[in-house]
């Protein structure tokens, strides 16, 4: 569910062709705010995809998540009613919960009175609501949960899905979907001081570029169906996008105590967990913060692990923005599609700054067989996660 395409094939076609979904905010009037661009999901009409019962009780992000789950289950050929309900679970990531819904109810409270606050506010704002609504809709009564780690959450949720599958679950709907492009969400994001203030959609979000000046936020994300291999074969699955090979996660040290940021170690942990050496990774999907100090940390981590220009690096998120908890799940989807099609999508609009020794894929896609990818993700506040995915055997 991406700003440059609804659904897998629309997203991937746009991404392969370098088509951006970033533009001036339309969901509210951004005049007067320091940052005015976002990656908005276009053309999504919830009523076309969801029953009317779910509309009054869902924030935009939950509508995205429900529809993405429907599409993912259809893509995987899963009919939940045909599978044992306690064998299926849902693990999502969330950064903001239902901010737009909550803002509306706060407005009702203060402008009209408490009688006008929706009863559904009781859960529509809550970080775990995407998990809850998906699990209710499909009667998935197995182990479920939510991870709140900003951009790293998109990987953390899939890693948790893997843990649950190793503990006995057969199928987990996993990933992150966020949407907080509303005034209340916007000021929360502005408080990070990491937002680009440029008005040019093609010059605003430039990771690893000499002119890097912050990021553009976006909405959306991706949900993936993670299954136990044997269970999937038993229900007749013939092909899959790939497998989760490894995962690592660290937390940054307290600022000022002189220890290294944790991204390099997260990457090394993921490789070790996958039983792979750096040379076996064919592409890295970068976190791409576009804040110079953070770009430096990431480039240094990649170079330390893979050697200078040691692995192709890309950040197709320049076309959609940073999607909070949805970002890294969407990167996982992009990584798996890159492996499927033998094509690395470009990091659009960027010229590589000379100080970074990374082989950044810019200008156009790079074609060639790919087998294994690493996705890196950092969350505001010190979260670092990395995940290795590879082609199915």
């Amino acid at each position, binding site marked *: 569910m991406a700003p440059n395409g609804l659904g897998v094939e629309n997203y991937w076609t746009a991404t392969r062709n370098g088509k951006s979904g970033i533009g001036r905010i339309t969901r509210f009037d951004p005049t007067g705010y320091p940052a005015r661009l976002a990656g908005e999901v276009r053309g999504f009409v919830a009523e076309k995809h969801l*029953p*009317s*019962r*779910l*509309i*009054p*009780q869902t924030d935009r992000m939950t509508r995205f998540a429900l529809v993405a789950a429907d599409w993912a289950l259809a893509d995987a050929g899963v009919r939940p009613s045909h599978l044992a309900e306690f064998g299926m679970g849902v693990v999502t990531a969330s950064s903001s919960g239902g901010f737009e819904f909550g803002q509306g109810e706060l407005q009702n409270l203060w402008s009209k009175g408490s*009688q*006008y*606050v*929706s*009863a*559904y506010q*009781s859960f529509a704002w809550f970080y775990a609501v995407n998990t809850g609504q998906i699990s209710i809709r499909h009667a998935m009564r197995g182990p479920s949960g939510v991870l709140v780690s900003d951009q790293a959450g998109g990987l953390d949720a899939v890693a948790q899905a893997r843990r649950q599958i190793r503990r006995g679950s057969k199928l987990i709907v996993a990933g992150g979907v966020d949407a907080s492009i509303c005034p209340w969400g916007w000021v929360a994001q502005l408080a990070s001081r990491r937002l680009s203030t440029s008005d040019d959609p093609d010059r605003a979000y430039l990771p690893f570029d000499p002119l890097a000046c912050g990021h553009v936020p976006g909405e959306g994300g991706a949900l993936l169906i993670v299954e136990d291999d044997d269970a999937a074969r038993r229900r007749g699955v013939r092909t899959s996008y790939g497998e989760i090979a490894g995962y690592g996660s660290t937390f940054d040290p307290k600022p000022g105590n002189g220890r290294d940021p944790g991204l390099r170690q997260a990457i090394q942990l993921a490789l070790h967990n996958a039983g792979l050496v750096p040379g076996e990774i064919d592409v890295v999907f970068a976190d791409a913060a576009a804040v110079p100090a953070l770009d430096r940390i990431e480039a240094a981590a990649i170079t330390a692990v893979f050697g200078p220009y040691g692995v192709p690096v890309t950040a197709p998120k320049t076309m959609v923005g940073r999607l909070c908890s949805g970002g890294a799940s969407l990167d996982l989807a992009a990584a798996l599609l890159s492996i499927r099609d033998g094509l690395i999508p470009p990091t659009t609009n960027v010229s590589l700054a000379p100080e970074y020794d990374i082989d950044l894929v810019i200008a156009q896609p790079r074609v060639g067989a790919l087998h294994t990818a690493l996705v890196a993700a950092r969350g505001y506040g010190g979260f670092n996660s990395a995940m290795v995915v590879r082609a199915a055997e």
Partner: protein
Amino acid sequence: MTIREVTIEDLKRILRESAGADENVDLDGEILDTDFDVLGYDSLALLETAARITREYGVTLDDEAATSARTPRRFLKVVNSG
């Protein structure tokens, strides 16, 4: 005290506005004695409906009363008894 009586048509409209309508349920059929669970309305839907009725008709329903009425007929009885 209600200003005017809340009818089943009023209730159906408010249910739809508050909580949508289940696609497998025909609200225009005979529903006065059908359990709200069967109609697809859970306790939150009824709380939301009760809040809207209070706003539109001025009658105050307590949460207990709103959620313990299991059918539209019983719900209307609670609402219209002032």
